[in-house]
C-alpha cells in the first residue's frame, strides 16, 4: 500500500507544481499532514519547494518510478482495475472528441473553425453530451473508488466542474488555467496511468 510520503509526491507529480492545498485537493487528505509530507519530500531531495509551492525533482521522479510497482502491485494485478481502466479509456476518447467539438466547430468542406460560441444550440448540444459522459464517468469512478478510495475525490471535482458548466460558466468545459472538466479529467488520467504503470496513448 502506498504511504503518505508516496501519495503526496504522487499527487504533486500529477499536478507537476502546486502548494499543499492543491495536493490535498487531489488526495482529499488533511492539508497539514500533506504539508509535512511535502516538507519531508524536500528534505529527502524528492521535491523542490519555495514559498509554499512545490515541484517534483528529477530524483523524486526516479524514486516514484521505483516505488510504484510495489505500492500499486495489488491494483495493477486486479482485473477489476484493468476493466475499469478500459471503460475509462472509452470515455476518454469520447471526451477528447467532445472537447475538440467544443473548441472547433465543423464548417463546410470538412474544415473546422474555432468555436466563437455564437451558436447556443451547438454549445447546448455539447453540454448535453458532456452530461451523458459525466454520468458514465461517475459509474467508472465508483468502480475505481471501490478499489482505491481516494480516487472518489475526482468524482466530486468533476461534478463541481460539470455543475459550473451547467450553470452557464462555459470556461469550465475545457479552460486550461482552471479546474475545468478537462483539467480534472486530465489529472485523473495521469493519476491512473502512474498507478497502472502505463504510457499515455494519444488519440490518432
Amino acid at each position, binding site marked *: 500500500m502506498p504511504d503518505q510520503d508516496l501519495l503526496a509526491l504522487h499527487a504533486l507529480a500529477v499536478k507537476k507544481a502546486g502548494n499543499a492545498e492543491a495536493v490535498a485537493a487531489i488526495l482529499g487528505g488533511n492539508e497539514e499532514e500533506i504539508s509535512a509530507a511535502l516538507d519531508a519530500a524536500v528534505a529527502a531531495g524528492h521535491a523542490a519547494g519555495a514559498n509554499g509551492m512545490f515541484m517534483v525533482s528529477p530524483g523524486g521522479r526516479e524514486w516514484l518510478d521505483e516505488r510504484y510497482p510495489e505500492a500499486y502491485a495489488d491494483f495493477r494485478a486486479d482485473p477489476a482495475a484493468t476493466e475499469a481502466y478500459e471503460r475509462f479509456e472509452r470515455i476518454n476518447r469520447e471526451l477528447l472528441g467532445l472537447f475538440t467539438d467544443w473548441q472547433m466547430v465543423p464548417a463546410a468542406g470538412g474544415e473546422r*473553425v474555432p468555436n466563437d460560441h455564437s451558436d447556443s444550440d451547438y454549445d447546448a448540444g455539447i453540454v448535453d453530451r458532456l452530461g451523458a459522459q459525466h454520468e458514465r464517468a461517475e459509474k467508472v469512478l465508483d468502480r475505481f473508488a471501490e478499489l482505491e478510495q481516494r480516487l472518489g475525490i475526482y468524482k466530486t471535482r468533476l461534478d463541481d466542474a460539470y455543475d459550473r458548466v*451547467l450553470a452557464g460558466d462555459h470556461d469550465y468545459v475545457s479552460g486550461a488555467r482552471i479546474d475545468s472538466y478537462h483539467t480534472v479529467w486530465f489529472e485523473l488520467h495521469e493519476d491512473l496511468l502512474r498507478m497502472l504503470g502505463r504510457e499515455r496513448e494519444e488519440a490518432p
Partner: protein
Amino acid sequence: MTAVADRVVVLDGVTVPDRDVVGNKGRSIAWMLSLGLPVPPALCLPIEECRRFHAAAGELEDEAWQSVLAGVTGLEEKLGREFGGGDHPLLVSVRSGAAVSMPGMMDTVLNLGITDEVQAALARLSGDQVFARSTHCRFVHQFGQTVLGADIEEPGEEATPEQVREEVRRDTGEEVPTDPHEQLKAVIKTVFGSWSSRRAKAYRRHWGISEDGGTAVIVQAMVFGNLGEESGTGVLFSRNPLNGDPEPYGEWLPKGQGEDVVSGTHNPLPLEALASQMPAAQERLLEAAKLLEREHGDVQDIEFTVERGELFLLQTRSAKRSPLAAVRAAVDLADEGAIDRAEAVRRVSAEQLATVLAPRLTEAVTAGAEVLARGTAACPGVAGGVAVSDSDAACEAEGDTVLTRPTTSPEDVSGMIAARAVVTERGGSTSHAAVVTRALGRPSVVGVGEGATAELSGRELTVDGSSGVVYAGILETEEVDPSDVPGLEELIEWAVELSPVAVVDAQLADAVDLDAAGASLEESAPDVEALVKALDGASAARGSAIATAEGARAVLLAGVPTVERLPGQQAAALLLRLAQEKANLEEEEG
C-alpha cells in the same frame, strides 16, 4: 393541427401550434409544413401529456397510448407503409421537444419498429444486407443506451443484432423489446421520464426554469435515401459557406443514407449531379432553400433525402461558415434587404474578423522557407520563437519561445501559456495539446512524428497552426488588405456609421488608460461597471479591455467619444465591437 382521439396532435401544417403545446421541434415541423415544404409526416404527444405522465407516477395513460396507436395508423396510411412489418415497413424516430431546450433530456432514438422481418424487408428494398443489419444493430444499441442505460461500445460492422442484445443483457440484465409497439411505448416513457432526470432538474434549478413544464414527444416517419433508384441523401447550403458566394452549395450522395454524407466515409458528388439525375427534386430543393433563408434571414444548412424521387427536408439550421463567408454573407444579406445593417454588423463576430485580418504567411515567404516538420494543424494562427523542449525553459525564457514536446501532460500547461506556439510529436486534433492550445489561443501543430522535435531544440522556428507546417527561422507575416476581402470594406464602413465612438491612431495625452488603471485584460471577462467608473467623464480611452464586448459596452455607457487604438489592436475589430454593442444596447432598451 388535427386531433386524433384528442390526446395526440398530428403535425400537418394546417395550423402551427404554440411551442408551449408541442415544443420547439414540433412547432418547427408544423411551421415548415405550413410553408408547403416537404417534411416527413409526424405526430406529437403534447407537453400536457408529460404532466399527466408524471402525475400518474410515470405511467402513460391508456387513452394517450391508444391515441398514439391511432396516430401511427395515420402515418401508415399517409405513406402506404406498415409499422413493424410488411413489404414496405414504416420506421419512426422519437425525439423529445420541450419549449426551452435543456440538457439531460433524452434526445433521439431512431429506427423504431425494426424486427428481424423488417430487417429482411429493408434488405430486399435496399439490396443491401449490411445496411439492413446495421440499422437493426444501431437501434438495439441506441435503445440499450438511452432507455436501459447500458454502457456498451458502438456495434462494429460485423455485429449482429443478437450480439448487441446480448451485450445489453450482460450490462443491464434487461431485454431490448422485439415488439415494435413495446419499443415505441418504452421510448415515449423514457422521453417523458427524462424531464425529471437529475441533469435536467439541476439545469432548471440553475436557470430558475419552472418544474411545471414538460416535454413533448415527436414521433416522425423515417425516410431512406438508399431504397432503390432515384434515391439518395445530401446537404444543401443556401449560399457557399466557404467563401460566402451567393450561390447554393451542396453535396449529393446517390443511394446514400443518413450520416453517410456528413460522416466522411463516402465521397459525395457536387450538387450538379442531383440536377442532372432528378431536375425536379433539385428545383424544389433550391426553392425551399431560398424560402427558408428568407424566412430565417440567414444562410441555411439543410439536410435532405430523396426517397424514390420524392424530396424530404430533414433539418434546417443556420449554416456554419468560414470567417470569410461570414463577412460576405452578412453584407450580401443586408444589400438584399433580408436584414438591416446593424444586424449585418452583429452577424460577424470579433473572432471571425480577427481571423480574417490575422497576419499570414505569404506564398512568397513560405516558398523560400525550409520546412522542418509537418503535422496536424491544431490551433490556427502564425507565431514564432526559439524552440525549447521543456516547460520550465519556456517559463524562464526572456524572448519568444515555441514549446516542442513529444506529447503534453498537465505539467506542460504553464509552458504552453508562456510559449508563443506549441509543437508535439504524437497525437491528433483531439489530443491534450490541441485542446489546451485552442483554449489558450496558441498556434499549434501536433503529431509531427516520433523524435522529430529533438533536433528543433534551440533553433528559431515559425509555427503555422493553420496549415500544420513548422518552418525554420522567424518568418515575416503579412497584414491583410481589407479590399482583398469581399464585403469587408462595406462592413467596416457600416461599423463606422453605427459606432458613436471614433477610433483613432494618434496618441492622446488626455486618454484614460484602462491598463494603467488596473483594468487590463486577464483571464476573465472585465467588469462593465468597474470600467464605466474608470471611464467616467473621460474624453478618450485606450486599453486592451476595449477589444472585448464588455469594454466596448463600458465605453458607450460612459459616453466616451474617442478610443485610441493600441499597437496590436485592429481598428476594424474595435469599431465592430463598438457598433455591435451599440446595437445590443438599443435592443435592450427596446
